[in-house]
């Protein structure tokens, strides 16, 4: 016996990863519009969102004139399945981790006065800004279920870890990375056997006043 239906769908961990990306892209654009309306610099709210990328920095590390906005890379890390909350045939309750890596980029520059702005500090501020925006967006009341109610049980920022990617502090560009381990509880579903109808059967269950149970069955069949 084989599965008769083509498995032509996304699993829900893929749906949720894409939904996280969609939420971030949509809300960052919205935040930039709100900043413009508030007469603030919308670039301060700009993040560049990627999914499942291995080296999103490459574009501008060798091109200092390109967009230096913080980069966010959303990628699926792992899942654990909770048997006690699942059933053996169709649904697996899943505890998934989606890593949301943020990278801040800073270049030392003259402050226009008697001092300077150090690039390492600017990079840390940039990545912290990205962390702030991402966490606030994903944990806002509007996205309690990430817009996937019925599929998502719960979302939670499990941890935030900041990395200082340095080779003895020697690199030309100052980069600080940070990871939000974003935990999502959700359901995964698996293909089911499509039952074949053999015969329709209708049964009425009646209980008499003395407590006796009486069944009355209707069989729809063609007499031979």
């Amino acid at each position: 016996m084989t599965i008769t239906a083509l498995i032509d769908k996304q699993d829900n961990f893929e749906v949720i990863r894409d939904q996280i990306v969609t939420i971030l892209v949509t809300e960052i654009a919205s935040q930039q519009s709100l900043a413009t309306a508030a007469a603030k610099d919308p670039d301060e709210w700009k993040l560049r969102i990627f999914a499942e990328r291995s080296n999103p920095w490459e574009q501008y590390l060798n091109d200092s004139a390109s967009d230096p906005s913080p980069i966010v890379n959303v990628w699926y890390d792992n899942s654990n399945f909770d048997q006690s909350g699942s059933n053996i045939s169709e649904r697996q309750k899943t505890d998934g981790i989606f890593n949301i890596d943020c990278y801040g980029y800073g270049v030392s520059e003259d402050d226009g006065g008697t001092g300077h702005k150090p690039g390492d500090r600017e990079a840390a501020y940039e990545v912290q800004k990205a962390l702030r925006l991402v966490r606030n967006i994903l944990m806002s009341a509007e996205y309690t279920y990430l817009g996937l109610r019925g599929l998502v049980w719960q979302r939670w920022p499990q941890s935030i870890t900041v990395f200082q990617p340095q080779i003895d502090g020697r690199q030309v560009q100052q980069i600080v990375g940070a990871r939000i381990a974003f935990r999502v509880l959700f359901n995964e579903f698996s293909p089911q056997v499509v039952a074949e109808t053999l015969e329709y059967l209708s049964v009425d269950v009646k209980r008499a006043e003395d407590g006796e149970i009486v069944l009355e069955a209707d069989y729809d069949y063609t007499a031979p």
Partner: protein
Amino acid sequence: MGLREIAESDLGAILEDSAYGFGYPITVTDPAGTVKPFTGYSNDISQIIDPDTGQAVSGRLASAAIRISSLTAAGLTLPQGIADTSKKPWIIEFDDINGNAYKFKVSQSNPDRALGLVVCLLEFYK
């Protein structure tokens, strides 16, 4: 002349020979704004950085090596990284081999006082 003096003298021939060696023009600006030209070694190369996120990112490393006696002869002290944001950093400028100009600040200074050489580790500055 001892071997160390000979080595320091050779350093000038090795480091500051822009005609037949790897010497290349370098401009140094101290925090007071004094600008002096030198000839020395300059490097600007790509390197992969591991940010510990499991995903490598591209990076660049730049450095400049200058003869200490040339710096002092020009009236400058040893360059050093300046952490104090209320002060100007040491600035080093040089072109790449294709003539593109780059400006860096000194983030770390590694002087070799035995040989008379200072290697400055650099980061972009604008």
